[in-house]
């Protein structure tokens, strides 16, 4: 009943590679995930996050490198490992012909649980994700957030050692996201090991103890959200937005305002440890931006620094 306290990581990857024909989706990545940890893959679409998750989920054969999950090799013991995983895939895979509750019950049966066990567990989980009233309904009319919660309940049916979440909140409205985050946070506190992918910086900062940034099939940085911000950014950022056409005329006038200047298509970011001071300096130089925003540095800035482009494109 006690969690395994041994230092052996739950997930251990070295040189992990996935190729589809000539295309390399994941290129020799190394990472470890310890028990009880909340670990994130951050990166834009097409960075290789989902391919990595599918390999960890033991549904996609490893092309090269080493991958050990719970000490076992997915290529050999896939079904056995999957028995101890909970998976929330990017696209829902709920059975639309079954009721909400039956979706959980039949899933429990896949893990070899008895009918009685399955029903008890299903009802408890529906309570946890606040879907108890919808138990008898079909899946189709549920909202996006409800379907997502049902998928999370389903992923918990077997008391998984690792919960894999591939973009758990993409496409949800803010309220649904916050409800989902709350449930995930509770799970984390109960010692569930979470592995998630996201392209939302706030999600990564909220949920991840440690994360890796992926870009073009490789891991480009690793650390806690705070460590990454300290390492790749400054304490504060001053955002200067100029009228259309003005930015192009500012050559030479921005240098030295902060430790680093980032010019985006629509605004200029000044990285410094004192954002207000940077704003004042700009004013002294006679720069007249339309708007000025001083904010705390975030993972978005880390990402920009590492990949040289914002997440928007």
């Amino acid at each position, binding site marked *: 009943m006690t969690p*395994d306290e041994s230092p052996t990581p*739950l997930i251990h990857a070295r040189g992990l590679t996935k190729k589809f024909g000539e295309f390399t989706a994941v290129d020799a990545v190394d990472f470890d995930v310890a028990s009880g940890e909340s670990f994130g893959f951050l990166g834009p679409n097409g960075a290789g996050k989902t391919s990595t998750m599918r390999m960890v989920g033991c549904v996609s054969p490893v092309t090269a490198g080493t991958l050990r999950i719970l000490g*076992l090799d997915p290529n050999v013991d896939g*079904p*056995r490992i999957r*028995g101890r995983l909970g998976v929330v895939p990017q696209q829902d895979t709920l059975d639309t012909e079954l009721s909400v509750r*039956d979706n959980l019950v039949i899933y429990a049966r*896949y893990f070899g649980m008895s009918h009685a066990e399955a029903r008890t567990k299903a009802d408890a989980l529906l309570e946890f994700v606040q879907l108890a009233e919808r138990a008898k309904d079909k899946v189709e009319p549920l909202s996006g957030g409800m379907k997502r919660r049902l998928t999370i309940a389903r992923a918990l049916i077997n008391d998984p050692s690792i919960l894999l979440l591939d973009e758990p909140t993409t496409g949800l409205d803010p309220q649904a996201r916050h409800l989902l985050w709350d449930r995930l946070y509770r*799970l984390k506190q109960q010692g569930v090991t979470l592995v998630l992918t996201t392209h939302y910086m706030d999600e990564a900062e909220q949920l991840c103890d440690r994360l890796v940034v992926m870009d073009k099939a490789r891991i480009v940085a690793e650390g806690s959200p705070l460590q990454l911000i300290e390492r790749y950014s400054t304490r504060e950022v001053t955002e200067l937005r100029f009228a259309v056409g003005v930015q192009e005329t500012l050559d030479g006038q921005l240098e030295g305002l902060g430790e680093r200047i980032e010019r985006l298509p629509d605004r200029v970011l000044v990285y410094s440890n004192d954002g207000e001071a940077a704003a004042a300096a700009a004013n002294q130089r006679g720069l007249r931006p339309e708007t000025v925003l001083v904010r705390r540095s975030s993972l978005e800035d880390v990402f920009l620094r590492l990949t040289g482009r914002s997440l928007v494109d």
Partner: protein
Amino acid sequence: MAVSGAPYRLRSAGDLPRRSPLAGLGAAYEHMWLIYRRTWRGSIFGSFVQPVLFLLAMGVGLGTYVDTASPDALGGVPYIQWLAPALLVSTVMQGSVFEATFPVLGGFNWDRRYHGMYATPLTPFAIAFGQLGWVVTRALMVASIFAFVILLFGAAATPGIVLAIPVAMLTALAFAGPVAAFMSTQRDTAAFNSIWRFGVTPLFLFSGTFFPIDRLPDFLQPIAWVLPLWHGVDLARALALGTVGQQPLLHLAHLVILLAGAIVGLVATYVMFKRKLER
């Protein structure tokens, strides 16, 4: 709502039970039952009532004319007795093509059920064979009720009509396997419409169900040998009419070809499902 924590029990990382792949097969098959329990009403007319209407219209309505005009055309057997076992097999074949189409398309593309199943200890083997096992179960259900109706109508020449049931199940598998394998490569029903219009309907009409295939033009007859429906139809008819002994080699060939079709279908479905799931 007084929810604090999840109903979650932390287990040791070394707690990794082994299970036999057959346990997963049972659960995958159970899934189909669960769906059927919710949707069976919709299948009643198509699977049970419609074939009976066909038997009435063709067997009784048209059959009366056949029996009057050509009493010896079918070896002296009344048309309805000659038609009934064949119609049973043809009907089951049509149903099995349906059961191998929409669930497979849906499982991979619509609600992506199969991908959800594969995230658990279930193997492609369990997912593929759970689906095909269900097709055979449906074949058993439809064929049994049809056989019962035939007996009720007095349209059975001998009790051998009961043996048409396993023949129908085998025919169902020989059709459902290749169709399921093919459908796993499809994203929508476009190809299915062509299969139905240019495959299933002509087979239904020209595989010796309604008239002996020797009435087909000579150049068309070899096609009946290639496609499995005629083998199922002819074997079921021989068993029902008690004429197996007359051409034992031919009927053995039917059985072998049906078995071969079923095995090829099973293997093809397994291979295609595995390829599609493991990407």
